[in-house]
């Protein structure tokens, strides 16, 4: 590709008056298209997942779906303005410590939704990991984080016993955990919280490589913001990371 056509040089052709730091909502052109494509794909995956979780009796056509959807949104509508408030006071409680108390079960742990309890109760470890949905931990709520890490660790242990730990399920679970740790782990490495010694080295390295590649790909797909000037070196590195992520 001729140098003048390379997207890395696009900033040199930007119109006057474009300020640095504009949000994607204000962006036009290829970057916005890229974001839309990425979001559309992610939404399609989420819609499929929702279909999978919906019981058959609730899939009787659009009319049923609408009736249930309307019911759900009506129930939420009343509290829409308060929706961004922190979820439930129980979320801030040290639920891991409570789970450890003798004679307690998951049903006794406050702050877990019914869906989360159900996720915890899956006997098949692969299924349990696949469906494990880490909740949004409150900032600094290490107990919640550790609680979920422990649940994942249990599931990994079960997988190990079943000699089923080399599959993509374990890799995917560890990848998700890396993402979770990056958000809520307080800057500590994952092995600060989780003993992964029972996990084969291949799974660990595949998960880490996959996590990094996903991160780079997401960053690459977002593209640069209008008006941001990246150095030639940074542009070369970004292109290289994207190539690695595609492999």
């Amino acid at each position, binding site marked *: 590709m001729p140098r003048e056509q390379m997207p890395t040089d696009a900033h040199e052709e930007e119109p006057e008056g474009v300020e640095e730091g504009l949000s994607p909502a204000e962006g036009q052109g290829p970057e916005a298209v890229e974001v*839309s494509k990425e979001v559309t794909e*992610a939404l399609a995956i989420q819609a499929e997942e929702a279909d999978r979780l919906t019981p058959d009796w609730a899939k009787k056509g659009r009319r049923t779906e609408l009736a249930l959807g309307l019911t759900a949104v009506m129930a939420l509508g009343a509290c829409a303005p308060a929706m961004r408030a922190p979820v439930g006071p129980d979320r801030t409680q040290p639920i891991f410590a409570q789970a450890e108390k003798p004679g307690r079960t998951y049903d006794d742990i406050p702050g877990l939704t019914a869906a989360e309890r159900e996720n915890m109760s899956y006997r098949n470890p692969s299924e349990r990991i696949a469906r494990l949905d880490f909740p949004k931990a409150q900032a600094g709520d290490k107990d919640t984080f550790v609680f979920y890490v422990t649940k994942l660790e249990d599931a990994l242990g079960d997988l190990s016993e079943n000699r089923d730990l080399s599959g993509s399920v374990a890799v995917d679970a560890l990848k998700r955990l890396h993402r979770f740790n990056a958000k809520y782990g307080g800057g500590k490495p994952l092995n600060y919280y989780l003993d992964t010694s029972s996990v084969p080295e291949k799974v660990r390295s595949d998960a880490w490589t996959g996590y990094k590649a996903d991160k780079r790909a997401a960053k690459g797909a977002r593209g640069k913001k209008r008006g941001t000037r990246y150095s030639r070196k940074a542009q070369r590195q970004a292109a290289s990371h994207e190539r690695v992520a595609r492999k």
Partner: protein
Amino acid sequence: MLPQTKKILDSTGLLEKLPAESKDKLAEKIGETLEKKLVAALTSNVPADKVAEVEQRMDQNDSNLEQYLAEIVPNHQEILRQTVDDFTQEVEGLL
């Protein structure tokens, strides 16, 4: 997308962050996906022994369906709210 869903999405601030060019299309898809997620979250928590009753009420267009679901699904408000919260966070991460 139901008008009520649009209202909920407005309250999350998500729609303001969408790329201007494809805002309408994306908003529609986001709304539809959110509805699916809410339906999944709600129906997967309906106790098995109450399913027949829910179906019957839906067939009869029962105007108290919402109230009935609130009674039989434990923490039903929190489940729905958590679903919206998680969904908002996931979509925000993509923008």
